[in-house]
């Protein structure tokens, strides 16, 4: 029967409301248990 995905969505940072906020660019790890700290996303500093 699968699982209630709301906690998984929350751990992904996918908001309840329909506004999509990109999550893969700050994806810490496939599992919530191994996502214990945020990771540095790609960034660019002009010369």
């Amino acid at each position, binding site marked *: 029967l699968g699982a209630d995905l709301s906690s998984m969505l929350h751990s992904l*940072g996918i*908001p309840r409301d329909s506004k999509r906020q990109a999550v893969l660019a700050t994806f810490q790890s496939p599992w919530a248990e191994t*996502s214990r700290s*945020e990771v*540095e*996303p790609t*960034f660019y500093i002009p010369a």
Partner: protein
Amino acid sequence: SKRAFKNPLFNSELPFWLDTKNTLVQPHDEMPAQMAAQLESSLLNCPDSLDADSPYLYRKQLSLPHPTSIFFPNEPIRFVYTFETPGDHTSGDIYANTSLAKILTKFDLDTLFFIFYHYQGTYEQFLAARELSINRDWQFNKKDRCWYYKEIEKLPPGMNKSEEESWRYFDYKKSWLARRCNSDFVYNEADFEKL
């Protein structure tokens, strides 16, 4: 018979690599005990977000984490904000939702300028610049490397124009203060960074 298998550079490792092609072409129907053990050990060694974080071998003097008590975790402080600060989804960029970016929204200008000028080349400098330009409306001048801010002053009714604009810049060289630009300052867009 392939040449590579005779090449001393590869011939001690190639057989192991070739070996793995068997299970690729013909996977075991039932998982053999050894494979189950390998999966188990992989699960135990599963990399976490710290393993996946960006590597920094060299930290500029100032940006070294200040000596803290040995009881503090020595992992990078990238704790995760739990509460949703409202309106996060407006900027829509990938940083808005990160804890650090949220923390920087609470810093005052002084702190943001300190991070910007003293943590050169770091992610924190990038976020400070992002906070200054996106949320505080400051603009970075590539020529004199100062941050500028356009102030719009509402004039009382009856004057010949409704508002007066004046410019300020942050003087990081001497006074470490935001100062009013002198009257001959002309805003030249090309001098400013498109962040």
